[in-house]
């Protein structure tokens, strides 16, 4: 980033823009890069229900995305990856611009069996913008050691932390399956998402935290507030343990 700023000073604006479209790694004008990052930050909204990135990022449904550049796939501590993602990493998949863009373009086609239920960003320009945004949260060309997550893995920024005795309630998966029949009118059991987020394969503690955030009206959606208000702590735990194992 720092380097691109220096380098771009020598380039003309026109060339910078051309390169922004063609994406030539760090060789971008500051303005073109800013525009790309801005576009990427908007595109990232589609990722936010599962991924966090930035100073307070933690693992959520998906792993946090800080420092992803140069990292071997499926290797972050504290996150339960699919076997497919771990194997991809063992097979040599390292996240760089090309690999990330390809994965963002077609997650399940690139890593068959990934838990990431996202239909993919098909436009190359969108892939590059998103990668540019995510790159803001990785170090520059010189590698620095991985920084661990700054908070417990179950919560996300904004949702109130729950006491351990709520988070550790043992749910009844069979009851959760019955209760889930209400959820799947909107949230598809297959994990497909389109306008309504996927809720399959979430870590149970994350699921519990989010449902309690709706119940305590810290989250907005009135449909979810209404659903959460009708559920006891034990029922939320039962749903969490059921959906955690549903892939």
């Amino acid at each position, binding site marked *: 980033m720092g380097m691109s700023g220096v380098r771009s000073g020598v380039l003309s604006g026109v060339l910078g823009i051309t390169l922004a479209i063609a994406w030539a790694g760090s060789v971008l004008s500051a303005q073109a890069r800013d525009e790309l990052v801005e576009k990427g930050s908007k595109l990232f909204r589609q990722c936010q229900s599962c991924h966090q990135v930035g100073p307070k990022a933690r693992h959520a449904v998906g792993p946090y995305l800080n420092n992803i550049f140069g990292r071997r796939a499926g290797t972050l501590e504290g996150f339960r990856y699919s076997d497919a993602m771990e194997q991809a990493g063992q097979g040599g998949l390292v996240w760089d611009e090309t690999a990330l863009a390809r994965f963002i373009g077609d997650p399940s086609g690139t890593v068959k069996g990934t838990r990431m239920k996202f239909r993919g960003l098909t436009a190359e320009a969108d892939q590059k913008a998103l990668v540019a945004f995510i790159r803001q949260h990785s170090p520059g060309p010189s590698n620095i050691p991985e920084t661990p997550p700054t908070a417990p893995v179950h919560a996300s920024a904004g949702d109130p932390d729950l006491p351990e005795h709520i988070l550790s309630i043992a749910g009844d998966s069979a009851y959760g399956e*019955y*209760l889930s029949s*209400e959820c799947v*009118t909107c949230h*598809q059991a297959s994990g*497909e998402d389109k*306008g*309504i987020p996927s809720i399959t394969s979430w870590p149970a503690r994350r699921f519990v935290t989010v449902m309690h955030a709706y119940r305590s009206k810290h989250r907005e959606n009135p449909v979810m507030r209404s*659903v959460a208000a009708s559920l006891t702590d034990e029922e939320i735990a039962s749903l969490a343990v059921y959906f955690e194992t*549903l892939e």
Partner: protein
Amino acid sequence: MGITRRGFAKGTAAIAGVGLLSGMGRAAYGQARPKVVVIGGGAGGATAARYLAKDSQGAIDVTLIEPTKAYYTCFFSNLYLGGYRSLESIGHTYDKLASEFGVNVVHDWAIGIDRDAKTVALAGGGSVPYDKLVVSPGIDLIYDSVPGYSLEAASLMPHAWKAGTQTALLKNKIAAMREGGTFAMVAPPNPYRCPPGPYERISMVAHVLKTSNPTAKIVVIDPKEAFSKQALFMEGWEKHYPGMVEWLPASIHGGIESIDPQTGEIVTGLDTIKADVANIIPAQKAGRIAEAAGLTNESGYCAIEPATMQSKVDANIHVIGDACIAGDMPKSGFSANSQAKVAAMAIRADLTGSNKFPPRFSNTCWSLIATDDGVKVGARYEAGEEKITSVDSFISQTGEDAALRKTTYEESVGWYEGITADMFG
């Protein structure tokens, strides 16, 4: 759980695909498998059939009787009128219910129920025996509730209140309407299928005419004094289609005296409206099979036990969806889907001894007012002693920002995918 479920789905497919042909499926379960017949393959019936078959894992023999092979959902059919969806995109088949879940799908009309013999007679001949019956026939239209309207008149003045050819006919008539013409809707009296539906339809027609025929007028002749999401719709019409939509409650028009399908005239107590395109949505009652089987009361709908959806007149029959009297729940696809799961659980518990959990009821109705301007209303319900009772509700607010309205619309698209997957597999 995921693995179990997938394993089961594969197993069922194998039974349906190979087992039944070779007789293994029958052999495995013998003749003792309890039989559940479901009449009607809409949001109630398709969901009930799927959950019964899926959750009983083959222990219940499930037959679904539905006349049409391609089912068009009423929900989102207004979006087809508005040009946001193709007709194909709201059409569904029963293939997966048969192949993946082992439901026997019979494409025929159920014309009678012998409640003593516990059989359902089919229009095509023969009958189907049941141990438990789910009746989910939706609505029938009371054509003559609008003087001058009839089944025959529906080709000139479509109701389009059952989706499919009627909806396509209405869309074509709107497209062919003369420049500056009048689109008139006669709205239905309570209770009727999909309370916000007529007004979402007005929004969609206005959306189309705003571009294709901007001097056209829209008149709603309503037998009611108020309607679902009224403040939201009226705000939206003023914002997106100023001056185009006129809504006349009964206190203004003084009642509908007659309509003439040939001339398009709609005579009210106030004056005569000459419609270039008329959309007549008459009063409604439970689908005729419910009436034929003696399940309806003087209201035209079927009284049920709130906790199980069992008919008040026959405990072996569960009535769900638009045909039942669901207390505070509106007649909607979402409600029918919710009721179907309660009925399926109760039936399974009775027939196979599976767990009986407390019933859970909910509903949300999304409506589209204009591009990316979606609103919703919803509630949760409990099974009371006498009726299903609302315990908690919510509704979109007037003056909401565009981003929230867009999110609400996108949510409705997601819901459509979700509920149709939940119905048809």
